[in-house]
């Protein structure tokens, strides 16, 4: 891509804000379980008590420590997002590059499957699957990834088609390099910045879905999640719990989604030089 891609990105305040939040959440997600003072499923505390020195954010209706709940919830949401995004991106890139480079009936079959999957409303499939047999979260994330690769692969395919015309790739091909070699050594590395955008966009979508599914009560109640915490706290809105029980998961969720959104927006901007406002200036 463009040689000064990384430099542009690191000058964008939105990118830095997103990166900062992402690092913060990565640390919380990685250390969460060791930092949490109690087991989030431990129900032996006095239900709905206000915050104290023992319970930083108080106790919920089931007698569980809210701060520990929050740490596990962040970890679960982040894990869901990362797993879906990695898997979806991997499938999307491999399928998109193969379809674009090999062409012919491979392209035809793969792209027709992509068309159909693009039309299928994935959220409905997830709601239905989850409502019926409460599968483990990892399986739901995998289903979501399996339904979400087409958006990436369409873009990657288009990019591959334009790279196909490039002189160096025609040269490599004439020199007798095989498809697999060209895909692995040339095509996949050349589109690197595109993956970053795709990854951020997919992670955003997946965390959003996770929160919505949890909010609708579609995960195992023992699995802590931001959406579920919000949904439970909302039942007690008439009590004075909004600042210690309802606000923390709300803030975490919006910062989490915000972090990936800012990253995706600024990467997209840096990738499209036409969006740069003035020559030599940085994008707004």
């Amino acid at each position, binding site marked *: 891509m463009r040689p000064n891609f990384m430099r542009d990105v690191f000058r964008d305040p939105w990118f830095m804000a997103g990166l900062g939040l992402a690092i913060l959440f990565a640390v919380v997600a990685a250390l969460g379980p060791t930092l949490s003072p109690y087991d989030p499923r431990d129900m032996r505390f006095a239900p709905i008590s206000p915050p104290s020195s023992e319970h930083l954010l108080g106790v919920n209706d089931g007698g569980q420590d809210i701060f520990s709940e929050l740490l596990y919830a962040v970890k679960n949401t982040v894990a869901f997002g990362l797993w879906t995004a990695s898997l979806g991106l991997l499938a999307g890139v491999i399928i998109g590059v193969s379809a674009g480079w090999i062409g012919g009936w491979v392209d035809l079959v793969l792209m027709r499957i992509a068309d159909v999957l693009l039309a299928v*409303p994935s959220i*409905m499939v997830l709601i239905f699957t989850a409502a019926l047999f409460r599968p483990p979260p990892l399986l739901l994330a995998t289903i979501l990834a399996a339904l979400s690769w087409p958006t990436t692969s369409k873009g990657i395919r288009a990019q591959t088609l334009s790279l196909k015309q490039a002189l160096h790739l025609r040269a490599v091909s004439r020199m007798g390099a095989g498809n697999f070699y060209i895909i692995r050594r040339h095509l996949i590395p050349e589109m690197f910045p595109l993956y970053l955008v795709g990854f951020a966009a997919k992670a955003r979508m997946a965390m959003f879905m996770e929160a919505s599914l949890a909010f609708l009560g579609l995960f195992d109640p023992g699995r802590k999640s931001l959406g579920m915490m919000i949904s439970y706290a909302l039942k007690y809105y008439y009590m004075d719990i909004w600042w210690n029980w*309802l606000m923390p998961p709300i803030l975490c969720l919006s910062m989490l989604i915000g972090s990936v959104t800012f990253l995706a927006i600024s990467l997209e901007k840096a990738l*499209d030089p036409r969006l740069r406002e003035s020559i030599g200036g940085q994008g707004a």
Partner: protein
Amino acid sequence: MVRALRSRYRISIGLPAVFLAAALFMVFLSYALPRLLPGDFVTAMYASSNVTLSEEQEAALRSYYTSQETFREYLMRWIRLDWGYSYAYMTPVSSLFFEALPWTLLLLGSANLLSLTLGFFLGVEAAWRWDSRGGKWLVGWMTLFEGMPEMVTGVLLLLIFALHLGWFPAAGAETAYADLSFFKRVADVGHHLALPLLTLVVAYVPGNFLLTRNSMMIFLRSPFTTTARAKGLSARRVRYAHVARNALLPLVTRFGLRVSFMVTGALVVERIHAYPGLGTLLFNAIQARDLPVIQGVVLMSSLMVLAVILCLETVYRILDPRIGYAS
């Protein structure tokens, strides 16, 4: 002319085939999943309750709730608009569905209309004034709002405007049992609609805004814009009649791609504001494990999503003839 017609003809075969396949996939999933599952509805329904069933009761329930339909019968039943009976309410699923549908359509329709117009005009103006303080300020706020999911905005608005200030009702779509004249009733419905509508508008506007602005930024520098300006057209004419028309196309595509995500947003927002639409119906059905209702809501909403995307795709291909040749 002939080429244009031919490309349109090709669309009319290819696109519906894709959507028919997607629709059949959803119908098949809703048929097969409940039958493939480990465990069944009766066990799930009573597993978490204190009710203990005798062997005969359980067998009777199971035979009542397990159907032996073939896929063909299932499909024909849905085509005849016979969607079965709700386990929890013992009423036809279709009547529950059509009671909830108008509220969801009202909410989603007005939210989309408002956010498309707002996002479009703000985007056009912000792109035109990209160098001014106002333009940059708008981009900053919109980027910030784009990071806020419906769940967050919805709860915040509910806390502030319904529970703390008490300006808006916290639940429902109209005052129950109120015998109001037509205009008062419209005002009442609008009053209940305000908060969920505002939540969705805050959620949808930033995306529309950023996309319109991005495509405007690109088109503002194309030769045809320079030509339009050189012709001595007024700034507003150049902005709307020439540039913004092109920026409308990506907006239509994005709308199509996002239809299914909007459904989730609406489900969550309805639940937060206790709005009696499909989201609330689905939520209650999930809580009660009311399979026919879950099946009905999921299947019919996905078919509606598919229909909307199909319409938009067709519109898009007519608006932009290049698409037809590319594929």
